[in-house]
């Protein structure tokens, strides 16, 4: 059952809340501890359920919504030297705060412009107008390949919004005290966020064993963000540790050198913001508008404040020009992203990343209750759910070789408005753009996520699902796709035909973290070979991988023919010289 240690955000037993029929059962089994006790007894009594304790922990009775289990709640060390301000000495912070907004007001009383700055940030707006594609992007509206949409499910999803209380469309984006300064700036490690609404009745128990936040303490302990501050959301994207990205997971809180040469806790110990430089609370390093090829490289004295690229520190020619290998490698940087060679695999810190999610199987119940199976054990020993009634089936991977392709930095999104042809293969929810001959693309590594998720089969669009809510229409409670989609679309005023089916989708996450030490970078032959990593990329010649079909045949025939010809000639010479000497003897 693994109930020790502080767990963030768990939701237990909500799966029993299965439509109206289940209400009755839920009332019958009101006392939660006794449920557990009785189930334990039941399991022990039934011979076929007698299993090892470990197997038990992989079985049903685990909480369902525990997407962030933070065992290690200490802060990472950020070595910036001593700050010029000791916040514990500020009078305004030496009081008993009752809630987050009160702390924010105190922050803003000194940092007078910070609120205005921060409100421009995507961490606040969850909106992004793409400058070249014109698409309206951002979590506020996008479809994704995990829990499919934050829109309408903010009560749950906006836990990762850097604000207080966004649970529906009534959230006030203009109120500065709604900004959550602490989620990024708490340096005690003890701060945590909760869902902004309770969700389904069955999900009402959360934060069991979690100490209430000591507001004064965290308010007096602020500083520049450590890896765990950013990681509190970015490590857990997609609904769990490492699920979305593959190169971002909780192993990066205290990585060793092999896992990430920059963030190595005993070494360089970079914080996220060492590379993701900021200017007035706007961060460099956008995934919506990627700088796939930074031709500017190093900045003039002082740091560049506009990019998070490798080149901005290492230049475009970082290898040693005094060796042939170095020259050759520098010659690669115009076509090959640094990440392609220097991140040989992802999800290699002991935490798995999800590679496949099948929504079709969601909604199964056992004895009328939802359940989960944890049949994947990752390298750090944790067991990962391979099935959840609320979500369907999952597959994971570790030490994953990324997907490679030409990328010019432009991601093209399938939004809720995009029409697609479901017969044209998987729908690319965020497809990348690029080609070998556009003069700007480079070969990049991506984590590719494959999902089978609902869509409107008449209008051929993706759908918003109403997953989270304390009403009977929420999928996480009633397991009814039809209702969840209908309400999800209705709530957000999107036309819906009323008929859904499932469609295959891909999403692509450019890989840039988990940079290995140079001795672990990929070798030439990893790509320059017949069955190398770039075997699937077409349209250009690559030494060691490609040959010219008929030229090779002709060439080998010429070599073989010459060899055969001279052997034959030698044989004839031998035969004739024997004849002659015999003739001479006669």
């Amino acid at each position: 059952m693994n109930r020790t240690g502080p767990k963030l955000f768990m939701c237990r037993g909500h799966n029993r809340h299965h439509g109206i029929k289940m209400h009755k059962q839920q009332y019958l089994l009101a006392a939660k501890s006794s449920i557990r006790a009785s189930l334990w007894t039941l399991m022990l009594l039934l011979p076929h359920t007698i299993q090892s304790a470990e197997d038990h922990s992989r079985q049903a009775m685990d909480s369902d919504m525990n997407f962030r289990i933070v065992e290690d709640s200490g802060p990472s060390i950020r070595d910036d030297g001593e700050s010029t301000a000791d916040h514990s000495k500020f009078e305004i912070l030496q009081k008993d705060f009752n809630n987050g907004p009160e702390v924010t007001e105190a922050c803003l009383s000194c940092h007078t412009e910070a609120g205005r700055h921060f409100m421009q940030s995507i961490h606040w707006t969850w909106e992004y107008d793409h400058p070249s594609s014109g698409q309206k992007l951002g979590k506020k509206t996008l479809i994704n390949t995990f829990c499919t949409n934050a829109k309408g499910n903010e009560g749950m999803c906006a836990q990762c919004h850097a604000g207080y209380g966004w649970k529906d469309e009534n959230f006030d984006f203009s109120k500065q005290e709604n900004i959550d300064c602490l989620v990024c700036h708490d340096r005690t490690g003890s701060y945590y966020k909760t869902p902004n609404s309770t969700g389904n009745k069955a999900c009402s128990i959360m934060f069991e064993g979690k100490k209430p936040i000591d507001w004064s303490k965290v308010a007096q302990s602020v500083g520049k963000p450590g890896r765990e501050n950013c990681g509190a959301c970015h490590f857990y994207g997609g609904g769990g540790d490492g699920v979305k990205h593959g190169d971002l997971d909780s192993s990066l809180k205290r990585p060793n050198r092999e896992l990430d040469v920059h963030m190595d806790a005993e070494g360089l110990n970079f914080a996220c913001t060492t590379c993701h430089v900021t200017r007035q609370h706007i961060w460099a390093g956008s995934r919506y508008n990627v700088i796939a090829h930074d031709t500017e490289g190093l900045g003039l004295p002082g740091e560049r404040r506009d990019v998070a690229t490798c080149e901005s520190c290492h230049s475009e020619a970082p290898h040693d020009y005094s060796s042939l290998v170095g020259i050759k490698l520098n010659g690669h940087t115009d076509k090959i992203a640094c990440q392609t060679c220097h991140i040989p695999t992802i999800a290699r810190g002991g935490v798995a990343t999800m590679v496949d999610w099948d929504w079709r199987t969601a909604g199964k119940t056992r004895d009328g209750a939802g359940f989960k199976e944890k049949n994947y054990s990752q390298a750090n020993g944790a067991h990962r759910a391979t099935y959840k009634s609320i979500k369907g089936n999952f597959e994971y991977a570790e030490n994953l070789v990324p997907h490679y392709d030409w990328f010019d930095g432009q991601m093209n999104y399938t939004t809720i408005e995009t029409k697609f042809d479901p017969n044209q293969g998987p729908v690319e929810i965020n497809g990348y753009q690029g080609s070998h001959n556009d003069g700007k693309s480079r070969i990049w590594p991506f984590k590719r996520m494959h999902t089978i998720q609902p869509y409107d089969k008449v209008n051929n669009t993706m759908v918003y699902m109403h997953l989270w809510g304390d009403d009977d229409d929420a999928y996480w409670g009633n397991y009814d796709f039809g209702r969840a989609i209908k309400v999800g679309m209705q709530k957000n005023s999107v036309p819906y035909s009323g008929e859904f089916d499932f469609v295959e989708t891909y999403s692509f996450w450019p890989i840039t973290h988990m940079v290995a030490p140079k001795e672990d970078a990929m070798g030439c032959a990893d790509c320059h070979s017949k069955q190398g990593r770039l075997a699937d990329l077409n349209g250009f010649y690559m030494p060691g991988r490609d040959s010219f079909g008929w030229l090779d045949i002709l060439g080998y025939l010429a070599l073989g023919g010459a060899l055969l010809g001279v052997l034959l000639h030698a044989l004839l010479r031998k035969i004739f010289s024997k004849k002659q000497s015999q003739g001479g003897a006669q």
Partner: protein
Amino acid sequence: MSSQTNNSSHNTKVKTRGEKHYVMIYTRYERFWHWSQALLIFTLFYTGLGLHGTHDLLDFQTAVIIHTYGALALMVLWIFTTFWNFTTGQWRQYLFKEGVLKVIRFYAYGILVGEPHPYKKGLQRKQNALQSMAYMAFMVLIGPALWASGIIYLVYDLWSGHSWSADGLTLIAFIHTAAAFLMGTFVIIHIYMTTTGKTPSHYIKTMVTGYDNIELTEAEIAYIEETHAIAIKDEP
């Protein structure tokens, strides 16, 4: 030394057909050129096949390093040799000579039935007509195709930014590969031909020591006696 009498019947016309003498026909530089070129071509062919993916006996990085340095060395050698060929006038050895068909006929048939070689080696005629033609092809076709495409290949990074670079690389790789196959074919036949002398090792020995038994004209003998410009040892 030149007064020895040769009893061969066809050697009676002293004025045009001198007696056979054991003469240095391949100078030290020529032999250095030949053998270092041989070594480099073997190295380049072997590593090149590795890079091409024909075998994987060498790891790619090692193959690239050896192939690149080998190519640079060969280019330096060829620059020196071009200089040598023109300053010594030896380039004339490779000009077209009459009698190619006779030589071909000899290797196709005559050699089997014990006919004499239709071509007589001389100081200014070190190679037979077929050889001259083959070496000329080597020097003006196969060689340049290899080094020209090779140099362009080597400096790929100078032109990789152009939109045509992918097509350009394909073309260059094609020419380089095709020429390499021709070179390989040339080398196989060339090596075999070295076994067609009086004894199978005769020509090879000549290429090592530089000396061969050739006929000298009286003028040549007189020139050698006067100047000692060419080493001559009678009777090997």
